[in-house]
Structure formats: C-alpha cells, structure tokens
C-alpha cells in the first residue's frame, strides 16, 4: 500500500498542517501546529494539494469532491469552512470528524467549477475513474491538469478545522 501525504503550508493562516492519508480510508492529523507566526519551517518541503493528492471516490455528477472515504458513523460531525475567494473563484472546504479523526474532506462549493457541470453533459467525455484505473493495475507517475489554488483551500480547511476543535 502506498501512502499519500497531503501537507499544506499556508503562510496566510500561519499554519503548518500535515494530513496523512492511509488507503484504508481514514485520514488522521499527524501534526497540526497552528501557533501564530510559526509559518513554514521548511520551505523546501512545503506541500499542498496538487495532482494526485485528490483521493476521493466520488464519481457521480455532483461537483462536490470527497477526498478520503471511511465508513460514516453516528458520531461523525461535519464542519464547513469559510467561503474563501481566490483569484479565479471561491472555494469552500468541509471536514467531517469522528472525535479527533478526520473522516472526510470535501469541497461542496467551487464557483470556478460548478457553472460548467450544469451545462455540460459530462457523460460524453471519456472517463477513467480512479478505481477503474487502479483495477487495471495502471498507476500514474504524474497527472496533467491542476486542482485547487492552494492558499484558498488551506484557508478554508483551517477554518473548518478550527470549528471542529472548538
């Protein structure tokens, strides 16, 4: 099992956040250092959501993208971060937690993206769903076509985590 690591360094929010993803489906916070002014400790290893870190299984027509998956339980609670504007749109990140464990990270709102999904028949585009890709034993070295603007994602995620920890 390969382990993907999502780490976000958002100097805007003074946060060093490292999310470790395990393929069993659970995401747990390995390290959250939200102290003011801690900033980034190692610029060379800063990571943010990039191609390949999007690990969800949501393949429906919804624009929401669920990142990790785990069986939901009655103790799960979902917190939605602030709607953060970035250069080309807005982004809103939601986290679902079970105790101190993050169950899912999703993006229910992304204005730069959603208008197109409503007008386009996405079924017409050939789709290689990641499960299908994995089932064929095909792994990608790299992915072309980018995802979210990192700062906006980190900012909204942090505000969701702040709510969850209150």
């Amino acid at each position: 099992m390969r382990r993907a690591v999502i780490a976000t360094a958002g100097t805007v929010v003074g946060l060093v956040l490292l999310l470790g993803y395990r393929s069993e489906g659970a995401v747990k916070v390995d390290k959250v250092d939200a102290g003011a002014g801690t900033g980034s400790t190692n610029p060379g290893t800063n990571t943010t959501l990039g191609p390949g870190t999007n690990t969800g299984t949501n393949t429906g027509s919804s624009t929401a993208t669920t990142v990790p998956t785990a069986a939901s339980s009655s103790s799960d609670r979902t917190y939605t971060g602030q709607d953060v504007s970035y250069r080309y749109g807005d982004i809103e990140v939601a986290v679902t937690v079970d105790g101190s464990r993050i169950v899912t990270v999703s993006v229910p709102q992304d204005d730069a993206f959603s208008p197109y999904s409503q007008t386009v028949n996405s079924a017409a585009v050939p789709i290689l769903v990641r499960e299908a890709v994995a089932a064929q034993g095909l792994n990608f070295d790299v992915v072309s076509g980018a995802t979210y603007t990192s700062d906006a994602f980190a900012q909204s995620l942090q505000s969701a985590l702040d709510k969850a920890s209150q």
Partner: protein
Amino acid sequence: MTLPLGGPGATGVVRHVEVMGTVVTFDVRTPAPQVQVDAALASATRWLHWVDDTFSTYKPNSEVNRFDRGELPIDECCEELKKVVALCYKFNVATGGFFDAWASGHFDPSGIVKGWSVEHASGLLQQAGLPDHVIDGGGDVRLSGAPGTGRPWHVGVRHPLQRDAYCAALSVMGGAVATSGTYERGLHVINPFSREPATELIAVTVVGPELIGADAYATAAFAMGAAAPAWLERLVAYEALVIGPDGQGWSTQGFKDLQSALPVTTPG
C-alpha cells in the same frame, strides 16, 4: 485499494515547492546520494523563486512590471526577461496571434514563464546528474529520462468535470504534457481578438517534446475555441486532446496512439 500515484515501482524523491501562485512538484527517479539530490533540488528551487520575483505581475516592483510600465527599457532588463519577451513574440507568431502576452492590455508573460522556468529547472537537474525526473508545475508537466525499469512514463489527464476521474491516460517516453482549462483557474484565458475570456472549450491538453511550446499551444488553442482542432491538427511534433462545450472529446491521431499504448478501458 491502490492509489494511482507514483507509478509502479516508484522510489523517487518527491519535493513540493509553492511558487508562482501554484505548486511545483519535483519527482527525481535517478538513484543518487541524498546530498546530491538535495543540492540539485535546492538549486532548482532557488531558480523558481528568482523567476517568481522577477516575473510576477502581482509584485508591483518586479522587473516585468517595471518593464511593462516603461520604467525599464528592454536593453536594461536581465537576459532572462529579454529571452521571455522574445519567446512571447515567437509564440504570438506561431499561434496566429492567439497566444498574446499583451492581451490584457499589459505585458503578462505568465503563459510562457511557467513552462520556460520548469524547462530550465529540468535542465538544472540534468546538469546535476539527475536525468530521470518529472517536474509538475501546477498540472503542466515535464518528463525527463525514464521513470525506472525501462518503462515509459504514465501520465494521467485529469477529467475537467470530475476531479477524481481522468479523461486520458498517456504513455510517453519523455517530453511535456500541458493542460489549459476553465476548471483550474476559472475564466482566465483571454481571446486576444475579442478581448473576452475564452469560453468555447472546457479543456485543451497538448503533448510535445518540451513544455514551453506545449503550454503556449494549449493556451492558444483554448483561446481559439471551435477553431482549435483544425489548428492543432497541423502542428508538427505536438499532439492534442480538446474537450468541447458539449463535453465531447476530440484528439489528434497521435494523441490516440499515445493512449492506445496503455491497457485502458473507458467505463460507461
């Protein structure tokens, strides 16, 4: 469940750098001492930050903005800025005017700078004895050497409408893959003739021998809209996939060939 990341047998050193408003990921596959890899990646990272400082249109006193405001004549600019200006002219001509660094009314060479700076970073790694690597500049990728074990690179093309899905899987021996689309940055490509954001296409992916051209051609084709397929068909050494507003995909024969090298089926 296996993640479609890293490729089979991938054992590379992966490093991420936040720069130029995006994330650049280095994935070095050449087996080498850690100190050698660290030094090479530090050098490439310094280069990218220098490029950001020099070419950022978001930093009022960057050299590119001083040049744009007429405060700095071209002959007083650094050699790199002269080179980028020359590339902007070159690709403006090569794309029939659809790649236009002046489309916004100001000189904004961002559409060239990312591909050009990643190309140079790839060269720095090669010079440092690390010929096998991939650099991902926010979804525009440069592949050098081999990923290992003699196989080709496997490149996914993210589906423009479904973030967890792919619309193409390519098998390439090297070169570059660039994607221009509304899903990454909203309506960010200006049609230089209408001066309006380009909205006719959903995404354009271009595969070629190097990233500067692949990136510029993807941007230009995106601005062209419905005329893009006929234009892309005439390009030599570059192959392309176009996703139209109706969600229909179109690709050059060469692009199909790069796909058919992989054992892929498309469900549905």
